[in-house]
């Protein structure tokens, strides 16, 4: 069983998304093989962003997740539909799941953190 991170927030609105990613990377650095699941507004973190002066591009950090040892990336298909986003537009793309699979993924996690 591995830890599960659930990301539900937009990338730029405040520090929550950024601090979620920092926590996820710390978990991976301790070789815990975390899974990350993007749901609701969280899927908007996966849309490539333009660089802004003086501000780290959160999406670029997400594109490097695999390099940092986060290999299991899950995306909620219903949330994509809500925002009219196609999987091909996302970076990284991750594995699509339906709502009916979500509860089981949570049940099989060692522990869960929502950001």
């Amino acid at each position: 069983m591995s830890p599960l991170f659930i990301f539900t927030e937009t990338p730029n609105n405040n520090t929550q998304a950024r601090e979620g990613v920092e926590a996820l990377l710390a978990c991976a650095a301790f070789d815990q093989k975390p899974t990350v699941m993007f749901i609701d507004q969280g899927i908007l973190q996966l849309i490539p962003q333009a660089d802004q002066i003086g501000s780290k591009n959160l999406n670029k950090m997400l594109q490097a997740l695999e390099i940092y040892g986060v290999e299991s990336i899950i995306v909620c298909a219903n949330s994509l539909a809500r925002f009219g986003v196609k999987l091909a537009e996302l970076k990284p793309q991750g594995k699509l799941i339906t709502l009916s699979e979500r509860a089981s993924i949570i049940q099989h996690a060692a522990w869960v953190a929502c950001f």
Partner: protein
Amino acid sequence: MASQEAGFFMASFSICIKAAPQASGAAHGLEFAKACIAQGHSIVRVFFYGDGVYLGLKTQALPQGEICWGKLWQNFLVDHKIDAVVCIAAAVRRGIVDAAEARRQNLDIDLLREGFVLSGLGQWIAANSTADHTMSFG
């Protein structure tokens, strides 16, 4: 009050910031305020309320690649000599104390950025009454 100067219509603004330092409202408010000044309009006062009071905390240290909005607000307010009031009730409740408030806790410190002062909600109400336009962010 609105006034006609050199052919331009000049307006006055009262601005309230309720957004925490890294929340989008802190940036919106600052860029809006800069655009007001750039067009020759005036800002009666900027009032920091709610989590916006954290913008007045001088000990923030952002990692490389992140903007310190409190510092940018301070630069702007000082450069343009704009009245910057941090709500005293909201600030003290959150631990943002100036020298006088720290002294009540027997601490010899001042956590408020230079250019900001602690004062009451009446300052916000008064600014809203005086200004042509009242805006709030966050």
